[in-house]
């Protein structure tokens, strides 16, 4: 009654989020969800959003998709990494409605 899918999670700068979601759209993802980020740490040190220009804000993008689209995302890594995401992680998941993804 559930179906195997992939869950892709990407942390990326808010100002470049549209590049990532455009890419997901083009690769055939049926949708995505953007969540706000309060703060983070990575190679560039601590990032805390809220400066007035917004350039220090990050977002999390979640995309549930089939294995094929996930493959395409992995293959498009050059283009994806061009948007300089901080993290891309992919998890196996089950979904209820196969026809949606």
């Amino acid at each position, binding site marked *: 009654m559930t179906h195997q899918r992939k869950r892709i999670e990407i942390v990326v700068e808010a*100002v470049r989020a549209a590049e990532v979601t455009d890419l997901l759209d083009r690769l055939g993802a049926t949708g995505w969800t953007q969540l706000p980020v309060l703060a983070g740490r990575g190679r560039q*040190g601590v990032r805390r959003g809220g*400066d007035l220009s917004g350039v220090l804000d990050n977002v999390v993008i979640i995309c549930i998709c089939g294995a094929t689209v996930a493959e395409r995302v992995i293959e498009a890594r050059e283009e994806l990494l061009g948007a300089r995401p901080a993290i891309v992680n992919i998890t196996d998941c089950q979904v209820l409605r196969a026809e949606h993804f």
Partner: protein
Amino acid sequence: MSSFLSLIPPPVMFFALGFGAGAVRAELSVPEALARSLSLYLMVAIGLKGGAALAMPGASEGLWAALTAGILLSFLLPLPAFLLLRLGTKLDRETAAAVSGHYGSVSVVTFAAASGTLVTLGVPQEGFMPAVLAVMETPAILTALLLARLGGGGDAPKLNARKLAREVLLNGPVVLLMGSFLIGYLAGEPGRRQLAPFTEALFPGALCLFLLEMGLMAVRQLRAGGKGLPVALIGFGILMPLIGGAAGLVTGQFIGLSTGGVALFAVLAGSASYIAVPAAMRLALPRADAGIYVTLSVAISFPFNILVGIPLWIRLAGVGT
């Protein structure tokens, strides 16, 4: 002491309060939405007041000279900035170009603080200065991009011209300032009177709250991005406002502005953008280090301008002499 301190305008004292509270890590914070709202409010109020002032008879005298001079300064100031950075620090070309763009452009709140101080001192200022503020926001972005590309070789970032044009012409602060200025101008004196409780009576208080947050933000940014900041860069963040301000002072006198106008012109030229330019650079020069330009602008030059620059230029412009 009290009598000396009492000469400091309250908004500047609130900046110091925020900075001090941040420095000792007091548990004080301003909601992000409030900071952004106050920033919008200040731009709308500055624009409306300027437009209404320009609508007064005779107020446009000297306008075109000031606009032209402002645009030129914004175009040119990134050049000395870039030279200083490339010769005096180890910044890569792209980051150096991005930083230099910030210093050609201007800071709305530094302008607001200076303008408020002049009002308190009773020194008149040209009503069109908000328009000068608006036109100085963006020319520097173009210079910065040229600097990033010149000699950048094939490796230089591809410039998406349309995206860039939008970024330059249609960035938020410019649209809001110019739009409010135009509305203030069209609404004229009746409009001014109707909106005065909002744009004028509230202004000093809103500026106090906003500068409180800017003080907190400066420390926060200093802490997040200031650790690795080389001394040479910090020096640049202090020297460049002096260079820009001096250039503005001379230019303002040359084009014949009033004493208050000269002071404001120097303040504008000496100030560094922290809204429009970072956003533009992030998109146009993605390999430049955002941590460096945000920190320099928000945490070094902004405090310097608020605490030292404004009084200095007001004095040098000839106020009170």
